[in-house]
């Protein structure tokens, strides 16, 4: 062992490699674990020969073409509609008082779990739902609900709506983050002085600058919408169901040989997502060419009021359906008997809370332990990566950003079962450590994305001044940079915390059932179908991220309330 001092790097420079290993290692191992059974290799069941039977079975399934088509159409439409609405809302209202009110609403809206939002929406719009109940029977004359197909419609419209109400707030948040990078307000003002209408000025002057920055989040929305399971099971069609639901159904079938077909379907799902991303990319390309021409013709924009009204209507509708849906579930959690057409429960009782409340202690503690550990790990890795990048002056390439997004682009059902087998193999399945590692895969990208821009936007001259006063690089990091970035650090932590709290499949599969969180308990109990339980868990699942987001805003405000310059770091 000869020391080789010239090869000794400081610990920090290993951070990017460690981060990549944490992100990509499990995904690649998991994908292999899915790819093998898709081609007939599953030794645990005695399948030891590679063949194409799973694929033949998959394509012989009745209605599989419709399942595939639904996956693509619902995913693409939900993404397109969400993006258009988010852009319209930004274009029409950015910089107004209304917009800052929407901004303040975003954290609580983002805290609503997808499944809870879907349950809430289902109760709102069903023929026996809350809206019909308000008007029945006095206005409609209905003593029993009409037999109309609204939820679970064969085109997936209800499902698209359920996705849009959750994705618009997410894209708005991403747009807001991107707006900080470009001088949006002045770009718009310049365009407006040239005679463009407010919306047209934003779309022609600002959007082309910021779309590249929200491109990856949009892709994540597309991948998520195509492979979502819980929302599809609550609001989506079932004759047939979208492909992702099929994967889970086959995976859970008592007939174990269907797992091969499930694996093939999971691989197909992954390929579909890739294809849809390709289509989207082509669309971007085409739109960019057409758009250039459209920009050059110099149309100043018409029907300004109509479009503004449309944007306002959209955001109102989204906020209203999320809030009313949650309100409905909250009411259910204290409801006694509540039958159609009563607009309110016949009586209110705390029976459900006292019944389920005490059992929540343990899952709550585990949820917190996992989320806090994961967030700390993610923050350490992220800061280490960003600091390395800063000190060594290397800029991230698009390729490495893609890698970061990989966990969000690969459908969870495609690699988690494979990962489970791996964890079982090395004997860590069912431990807190395994769950924490699995959560880290999904939390790290969000934390990184939330922190990267503010971190890179930090003025390096501050560091130069500190260095000229004799501070070491580490001292600058701890005493100057991190305190100045406290707000973005806390916001990133809150985003990561919310992500961890919401994880279902990763917790279930790597926890081996021994580690229970609020979310796994919620899903197990919700399989009993009682809206009262769903209401209780939806409120709790929402409360945790909400507290985290509130703390992220309150702590810096408290610490820095006498330092004007520190209050504007976000």
């Amino acid at each position, binding site marked *: 062992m000869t020391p080789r001092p010239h090869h000794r790097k400081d610990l920090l420079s290993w951070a990017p490699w460690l981060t990549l290993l944490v992100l990509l290692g499990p995904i690649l191992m998991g994908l292999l674990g899915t790819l093998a059974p898709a081609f007939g290799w599953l030794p645990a069941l005695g399948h030891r020969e590679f063949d194409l039977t799973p694929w033949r079975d998959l394509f012989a399934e*009745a209605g599989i073409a419709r399942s595939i088509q639904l996956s693509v159409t619902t995913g693409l439409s939900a993404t397109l509609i969400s993006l258009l609405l988010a852009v319209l809302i930004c274009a029409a209202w950015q910089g107004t008082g209304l917009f800052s009110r929407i901004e303040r609403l975003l954290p609580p809206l983002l805290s609503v779990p997808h499944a809870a939002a879907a349950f809430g929406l289902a109760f709102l719009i069903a023929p026996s739902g809350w809206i019909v109940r308000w008007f029945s029977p006095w206005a409609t004359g209905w003593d029993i*609900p009409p037999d109309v197909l609204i939820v679970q419609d064969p085109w997936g419209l209800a499902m698209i709506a359920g996705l849009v109400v959750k994705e618009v707030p997410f894209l708005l948040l991403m747009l807001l983050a991107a707006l900080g990078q470009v001088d949006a307000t002045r770009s718009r003002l310049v365009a407006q002085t040239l005679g463009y209408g407010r919306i047209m000025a934003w779309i022609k002057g600002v959007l082309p600058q910021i779309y590249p920055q929200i491109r990856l989040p949009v892709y994540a929305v597309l991948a998520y919408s195509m492979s979502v399971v819980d929302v599809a099971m609550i609001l989506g069609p079932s004759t047939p169901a979208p492909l992702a639901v099929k994967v889970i159904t086959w995976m*859970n079938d008592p007939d174990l040989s269907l797992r091969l077909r499930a694996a093939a379907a999971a691989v197909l799902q992954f390929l579909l997502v890739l294809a849809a991303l390709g289509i989207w990319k082509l669309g971007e390309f085409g739109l960019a060419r057409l758009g250039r021409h459209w920009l050059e013709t110099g149309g100043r924009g018409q029907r300004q009021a109509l479009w503004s009204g449309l944007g306002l209507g959209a955001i109102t509708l989204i906020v209203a359906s999320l809030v009313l849906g949650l309100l409905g579930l909250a009411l259910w959690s204290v409801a006694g008997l509540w039958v159609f057409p009563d607009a309110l429960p016949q009586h209110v009782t705390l029976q459900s809370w006292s019944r389920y409340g005490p059992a929540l202690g343990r899952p709550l503690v585990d949820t917190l332990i996992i989320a806090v550990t994961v967030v700390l790990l993610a923050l350490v890795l992220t800061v280490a990566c960003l600091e390395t990048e800063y000190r060594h002056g290397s800029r991230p390439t698009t390729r490495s950003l893609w890698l970061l997004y990989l966990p969000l682009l690969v459908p969870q059902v495609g690699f988690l079962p494979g990962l489970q087998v*791996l964890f079982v193999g090395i004997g860590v399945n069912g431990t807190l450590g395994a769950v924490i590692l699995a959560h880290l895969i999904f939390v790290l990208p969000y934390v990184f994305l939330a922190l990267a821009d503010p971190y890179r936007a930090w003025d390096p001259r501050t560091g130069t001044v500190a260095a000229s006063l004799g501070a070491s690089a580490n001292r600058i990091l701890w005493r100057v940079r991190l305190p100045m970035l406290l707000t973005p650090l806390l916001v990133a932590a809150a985003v990561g915390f919310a992500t961890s709290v919401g994880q279902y499949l990763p917790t279930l599969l790597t926890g081996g059932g021994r580690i229970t969180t609020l979310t796994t308990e919620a899903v*197990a109990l919700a*399989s009993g179908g009682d809206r009262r339980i769903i209401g209780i868990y939806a409120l709790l699942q929402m409360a945790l991220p909400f507290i985290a987001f509130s703390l992220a805003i309150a702590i810096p405000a408290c610490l820095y309330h006498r330092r004007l310059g520190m209050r504007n770091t976000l």
Partner: protein
Amino acid sequence: MLQSPALALVAFLAVLAFNTPASASPDPADWDAVLTEARGQRVYWHAWGGDARVNDFIAWVGRETRARYGVDLRQVKVSDTAEAVSQVLGEKGAGRDTGGAVDLIWINGENFATLKQNKLLFGPWAQQLPNWRYVDVGGKPTVLEDFTLATEGYEAPWIMAQLVFYHDSRRLPEPPLSMPALLAWARAHPGRFAYPQPPDFLGTTFLKQALYGLLEDPSVLLKPVSQDAFDTLSRPLWDFLEQLTPLLWRSGQAYPNNGARLRQLMADGEIDLALSFNPGEVSTSIATFELPDSVRTYVLSGGTIGNSSFVAIPYNANAIAGSMVVANFLLSAEAQARQQNPRIWGSPSVLAIDRLPAAERRWFDQLPSAAASLSAEQLGVPLPEPHPQWTERLEQHWQQSYGVSR
């Protein structure tokens, strides 16, 4: 002479090592040894967690086994038994043949058949349990035959289940008692009946029940069936569904995904007639305000399909002795009477109550009754589950004909 104690230690460890395999497979015939080994063990019971009453019952079982036998029972609440099967399968795939995460599974039917056929179960053990002697082997043959597959002691029964129909007596005072009557009623009241979408267990059971009600000779259901024979024999069912489907809730364009969703449709007033595989479900749902108190349970004339639910121990379970102690306690008169209590859970017992010693029978004599539950006489003798081949072909044909809306 420092080496000799070390040598002795090595020899001692070697003896230990050779002795351990015996204790790795506890023999239920030597019950005292099982009890000794079980003390201090922690048993992870993977059981469906969708019903708070069941969860409460299992929590009670845990308190009792801890106090009486020092067995620490933990329920792992799963949303589907297949999750536990996946776990065992994953462990098998990873070569983890001991110390597995699953000690006990609430299981029956297809899940049992797959685990047994893939040699993923420990056993046989169930019929050597001390409390096995009171199990109603004669009156409830399903405790020995799980979906026509002989259990052979690889799983121990703990509750009886039977298909029941339920209706809101205010909107539908006189429910249809046979499949033809159901069709006639649906003609007069379109859109007011639904069944869960096969391959959901309850949905498939409805198809099997319809076969029982439509076939001239239902005894063919108990035997394996070729595709050709199936196509001929099952024709009355598809004729029946051809007429029923347009009269279903949402005209058969959408189906509830499971029994829980079906119950919600009843609570929301979207349907007037529904079905369940737990005869006590309606009573307990009335108590939790999930259903109005006007809902009543009944069985079709000619009887309905019934089966037993079991507990099984995976081949690589960590606490085999503890799991057997829990399974044995589940078969005690006290536990069986508690689960049959309609105010607690309302699932019928697997024991031959009349054969119990008087002191044990007392537990059952004290049970209260509930308006929406049926007595053993009203439930009648359950019809046996058809052969698994029928299930498979039914699900396949249904998916082709009705799984893609037209």
